[in-house]
């Protein structure tokens, strides 16, 4: 009975296999969305999970073409490729967006396995799908967030060494570099040199520890202009907590910074004016009523005359201070100051005339040299005022123990025109007064004529036309004032 026993054994094996297959089917049905279609795509089998996700009943689906679930998301080519693959007997897999009975959409990761007959031609297709709707929605959200971020912020990604690996369009637009010029470069390429070393050391030590850094940074664009960005740098960490790259998100705050700067300047100006009003104006004013009441209360005419003579000084100081205050206000508001080609020598002569230089009863040696730069496109009014203020300054602070010598000259350094006024006067202790020199705060000598106004006005005028002024001085040796024109 060997055949019989063999048959029984085979039957047992078959039963065993069948039950294993049955179990695998249960496992598959439990985890996946399963459908079988004929070669035309007509549904001949669906499992429960298929019905649940598509919201159709089995009866509604069986015999229908699979197109019933088409969402219209994918183009014709997509399905053409799919059919081309499976009709050749090959497995296809991909992500498909389907439409449920109630009109809602769902995404499925799909694998279609063709079952082949003896001639190796497909006679039906088994599709196994997994619901990936949630993942897809998250992806979609991320993409939308990226679009939102890219349209709002300046975004860059660098590796741990600071080499740029990604930048968005806004980054290129503000830095004026192209993507190709920036990718692979170190982030230092846009360093403006404005911040101290400590600033970037602090930044790097923060992010390399895996912490988020925020702050305002001044950067330099390709064309040399500067821009300010409010910056947040987020380190992306690996499983060990070590940064693998840095994502920086910036917002352009150049305008705010400029306004801030302007506000600061205005506050400083206001403070200066407060000081003038509080001291330079208030001081002589406060003297007047006292002197008047002293005149009213004194007994003799002689005494009255004496006190009355004291009135003239505060009155003159008031008048002068008032005029200077108006002048410096005028400079601030002189937006459309007239500029023209101005001859240095001509302005210099006008200033000397104005100062009545040869009527001074002491000797001054004043030399000029405008041979290197003879003229400049500038405001004649201001240039004359610089000569007057700087030369009269040198005269006021002359050293009584030696003959005053003033040298006025022009030159060109690094493409910028400079005017210098050098004297051998008392000099100024720059260590003590350097930062206050051009303010209204102080005068630096025991000099009755010192009011400390001229330099303030000169500085205001120079800066309003984009230049700068500086002083070099040694006590008892003399001072040199240098104006750099823009």
């Amino acid at each position, binding site marked *: 009975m060997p055949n019989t026993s063999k048959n029984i054994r085979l039957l047992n094996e078959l039963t065993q296999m069948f039950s294993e297959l049955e179990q695998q089917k249960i496992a598959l049905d439990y985890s996946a969305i399963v459908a079988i279609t004929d070669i035309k795509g007509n549904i001949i089998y669906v499992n429960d999970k298929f019905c649940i996700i598509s919201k159709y009943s089995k009866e509604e689906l069986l015999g229908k073409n699979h197109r019933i679930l088409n969402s219209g998301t994918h183009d014709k080519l997509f399905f053409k490729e799919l059919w081309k693959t499976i009709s050749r007997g090959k497995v296809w897999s991909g992500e498909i967006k389907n439409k449920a009975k109630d009109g809602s959409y769902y995404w499925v990761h799909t694998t279609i396995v063709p079952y082949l007959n003896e001639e190796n031609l497909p006679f039906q297709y088994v599709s196994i799908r997994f619901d990936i709707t949630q993942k897809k929605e998250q992806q979609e959200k991320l993409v939308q967030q990226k679009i939102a971020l890219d349209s709002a912020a300046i975004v860059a990604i660098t590796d741990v060494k600071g080499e740029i690996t990604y930048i968005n369009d806004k980054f290129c637009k503000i830095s004026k570099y192209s993507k190709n010029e920036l990718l692979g470069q170190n982030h230092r390429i846009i360093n403006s040199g404005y911040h101290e070393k400590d600033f970037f050391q602090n930044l790097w030590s923060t992010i390399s520890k895996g912490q988020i850094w925020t702050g305002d940074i001044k950067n330099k664009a390709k064309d040399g202009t500067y821009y300010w960005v409010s910056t947040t740098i987020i380190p992306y960490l690996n499983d060990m907590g070590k940064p693998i790259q840095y994502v920086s998100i910036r917002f352009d705050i150049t305008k705010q910074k400029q306004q801030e700067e302007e506000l600061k300047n205005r506050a400083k100006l206001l403070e200066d004016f*407060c*000081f003038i009003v*509080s*001291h330079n104006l*208030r*001081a*002589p004013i*406060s*003297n007047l*009523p*006292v*002197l008047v009441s*002293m005149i009213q209360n004194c007994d003799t005419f002689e005494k009255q005359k004496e006190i009355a003579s*004291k009135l003239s*000084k*505060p009155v003159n100081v008031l008048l002068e201070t008032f005029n200077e205050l108006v002048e410096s206000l005028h400079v601030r508001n002189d937006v459309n100051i007239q500029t023209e080609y101005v001859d240095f020598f001509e302005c210099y002569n006008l200033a000397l005339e104005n100062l009545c230089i040869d009527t001074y009863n002491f000797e001054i040696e004043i030399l000029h040299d405008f041979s290197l730069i003879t003229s400049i496109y500038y405001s004649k009014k201001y240039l004359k005022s610089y000569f007057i203020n700087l030369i009269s300054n040198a005269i006021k602070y002359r050293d009584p123990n030696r003959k005053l010598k003033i040298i006025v000259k022009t030159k060109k350094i690094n493409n910028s025109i400079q005017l210098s006024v050098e004297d051998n006067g008392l000099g100024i202790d720059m260590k003590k007064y350097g930062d206050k020199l051009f303010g209204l705060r*102080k*005068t*630096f*000598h*025991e*000099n009755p004529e*010192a009011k400390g106004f001229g330099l303030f006005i000169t500085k205001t005028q120079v800066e309003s036309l984009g230049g700068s002024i500086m002083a070099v001085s040694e006590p008892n040796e003399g001072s040199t004032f240098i104006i750099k024109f823009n």
Partner: protein
Amino acid sequence: MKKINSIFVIDDDDICQYIAVSIIEHSELVKHTKVFNNGKEAIIYLENNCQILENIPEIILLDLTMPVMDGWEFIENYIKLKPRIGKKVYIYIISSSINPYDFERAKNISEVSDYIVKPLTLEGFTELVKFITK
């Protein structure tokens, strides 16, 4: 009313000096008045006279904004000198500044007895002497 022996006026402005001296003389409350043009002149005098009690004033009327050494710098230097001066000196700031920052700064210096906004008046000065001779 009790008189005081000596007073210093430290002010760079000659009109202010004139007014202060006139008021002091008019009050007839002070025997000697000494005038300095800035803090430095006064500090040098105090340094040279700190052992001579009769040359040390009871009152200093101190202006704030002055060239060379201003009122604040004078106070700094005075504080350094103070241990060598064997006498109580009342320092009154007499300034035209109405800047609240200056008021606050003066308040925080214990050596400053009070802050008087210019002009100094006879009534104000009489009150001041009355207060310290009490």
